[in-house]
């Protein structure tokens, strides 16, 4: 148990992931689901970036020619998270466009109402 407190960044990342995950599953309102998805993605990226951090080392930008490994942190997770952030923005933009179109059509944000209304429509 005390080990959790030592690794508090990763614990916080996992808690954020689970809160986002449960928001996305439990809430019926579409906008809440989208914000929950963003929180979930940010949680995963925090978890991934925590792995790359090394205490007492600086960001991987070469200053005045110093190029030994002991000076910088691991650059790979930063690259992966950069890609992840842009992926989560494009997914959010698409989901919001869908929500606006659905609101034109069904005048509700509640997913269950939409499914029921769509079920009644003709094919």
């Amino acid at each position, binding site marked *: 148990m005390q080990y959790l407190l030592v690794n*508090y*960044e990763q614990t*916080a990342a996992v*808690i*954020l992931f689970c*809160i*986002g995950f*449960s*928001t996305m599953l439990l*809430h019926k*309102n579409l*906008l*809440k689901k*989208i*914000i*929950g998805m*963003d*929180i979930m993605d*940010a949680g995963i*990226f*925090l978890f991934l*970036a*925590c792995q*790359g*951090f090394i205490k007492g*080392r*600086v*960001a991987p*930008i070469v200053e005045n020619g110093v190029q030994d490994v002991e000076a910088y*942190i691991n650059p790979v*997770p*930063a690259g992966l*998270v*950069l890609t992840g*952030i*842009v992926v*989560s*923005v494009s997914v*959010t*933009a698409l989901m*919001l466009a869908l*929500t*606006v179109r659905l*609101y*034109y059509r069904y*005048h509700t*944000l509640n997913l269950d109402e939409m499914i029921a209304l769509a079920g009644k429509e003709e094919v």
Partner: protein
Amino acid sequence: MSIIVQLMLLFLIVCAIAVCVTRDLLTSVVIYMAYSMIMSIVWITMQSPDLAITEAAVGAGITSLLLFLALKKIHAIDARNEVRRKHAEKQRGGEQHGEEE
């Protein structure tokens, strides 16, 4: 230094729970904006400035802007429906008068 990071992570968790709990959509979008602002500061303490700029510009900036726009669009549609509903009531009101007379 690690106290500040712990405080910020605690704030993130509180923000996440607040989004889960709040009823009103506008407050949850504002809370999300604060969430991604604090997240970009956490990236700086994690010694990865690339992520900080991207999260600030893309996460806090564009995503929150799109969320606000979606809300504005939905309120605009609500306003339109109010106009239509009042118009429908007025017509129905008119017919009742017609039938009564």
